[in-house]
């Protein structure tokens, strides 16, 4: 029997993770990963290497075929739905395709995690407004996502991911659709979140960006992870 995730202090632990879709070959094979709290980590790898799949496992959108996942010191395999819901609220996710809700305004999209958590509108209006101003969307709060540019959508998605001050922030190619200046600014936002205590895991293939923000870098290749300096 596999041991329980070893470290209660780690934000994310993966032990001997394997994943296959249906009867196909393993996309991930024996992946081990540990993110200490407050760490900042880049995940690199070629397209199709399984970066997005690994992130899906980390933010609980997929179940592994084998192995153990621990979040904030708890084995997710033994947690019930209610516990997983609470756990998801501690994770902020920025997806490659943004997943903004088209009929909701920028403000409502960003406020969504707070609404889900049951907070009253009056208690979060100021927080959301300030954050939107910080990411440069103060003048677009009532705009609908289809009217936003790629960069604006990206910033809106990032604002939604960080509004609830998550303990773990996971981003899949967060700078993929923006110009280098905005990309750098967004990365500064992640760094600021990290400085405030959040653990950050960013999947990217933008090596130039990694060079500008030196941090621990993991490389995913052939379904396995190796440390890269």
């Amino acid at each position, binding site marked *: 029997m596999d041991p329980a995730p070893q470290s209660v202090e780690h934000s994310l632990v993966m032990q001997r993770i394997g994943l296959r879709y249906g009867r196909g070959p393993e996309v991930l094979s024996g992946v081990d990963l540990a993110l200490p709290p407050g760490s900042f980590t880049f995940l690199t790898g070629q397209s199709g290497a399984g970066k997005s799949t690994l992130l899906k496992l980390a933010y609980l959108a997929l179940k592994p075929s084998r192995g153990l996942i621990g979040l904030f010191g708890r084995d997710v395999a033994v947690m019930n739905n209610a516990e997983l*819901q609470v756990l998801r609220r501690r994770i902020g996710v920025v997806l490659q395709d943004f997943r903004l809700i088209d009929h909701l305004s920028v403000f409502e999209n960003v406020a969504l995690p707070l609404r889900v958590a049951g907070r009253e509108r009056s208690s979060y209006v100021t927080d959301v407004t300030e954050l939107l101003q910080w990411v440069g969307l103060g003048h677009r709060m009532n705009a609908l996502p289809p009217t936003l540019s790629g960069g604006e959508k990206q910033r809106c998605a990032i604002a939604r991911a960080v509004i609830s001050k998550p303990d773990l922030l996971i981003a899949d190619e967060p700078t993929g659709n923006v110009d280098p200046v905005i990309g750098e600014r967004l990365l500064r936002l992640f760094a600021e979140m990290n400085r405030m205590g959040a653990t950050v895991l960013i999947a990217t293939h933008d090596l130039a960006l990694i060079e500008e923000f030196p941090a621990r870098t993991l490389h995913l290749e052939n379904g396995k992870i190796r440390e890269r300096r």
Partner: protein
Amino acid sequence: MSERLPEQSQPILPSRPEQGRALIVVLAVMATLAALALLFSRGADRLEHDWSAQLSESSTVQVMVASETLRAAQMSAVEAALRDTLPEARINVLESDELDALLRPWLGDAPLPDDLPVPGLIRVNSRAALPVESLQRRLEGDGIRIVVDDHSRFSGSLSRTVGRLVLLGIGLVIATLGAALAVSLFATRAGLSAQRDIIHVLVQAGASDSFIARLFIGASARRGTVGGALGCAVAAGLWLIISIGPGRGTVGWSGALDGIIDIILLVALALCFGVVCAGAAGWAATRQLTDERKRL
């Protein structure tokens, strides 16, 4: 610089007016049928009570006249005995032309032979029951034989028939509510499929199944109640038209109290549509979300 925000939060699920309107129309038609079935049942029940009350207050006394020469005397004797027994009763001795009219459906318009033994008929209307046996004994002493028909044969049959009609009406109401439930189930499943992306975002944000289900329950309850209310209003309008004109003795509303009770029942029926639709949506959403959780 920031924009001015609306006071209220936007609904998380998109409103699709054209789809919502179509569903409301379907539910309104169902509610109209259910409401009409309910009103017909109630009307038939009222009618049966009216008729039964009228029948129970009336009876027909047949006087088996021994010979035509004695007819007038015997009829007078029976009439006097009835007035003596039931002083408050309305007593009406049928004349020969009225007797002929009663026989016409069976014998046609041909003149009746003079020697045809036709009993004399006396119609008695009284709230008090006619003491048949004592009356028969008293008249037998005078050599007069009578037979009393209290119409119980008809009223029993009427009661049973109306009872079946009422059951049929209740069955139709239940069946229609069942159809509304099925419509709501399908609509919720379709909605869940159509809003899959939004649901994924909500799940990722930590929304519980009940939070997501409530979004569908609210929309479905609104649709059901609005559809139900429209349908019941249409049925009430139709019923009002039926009620205008002939008064007591029809299935329509013959009094204010009947109308008020029926309106209260129609309001309850509209609310039932809302509750049934909300329940169906909640069940469908919770079940589908539970199934999806198993895969995650």
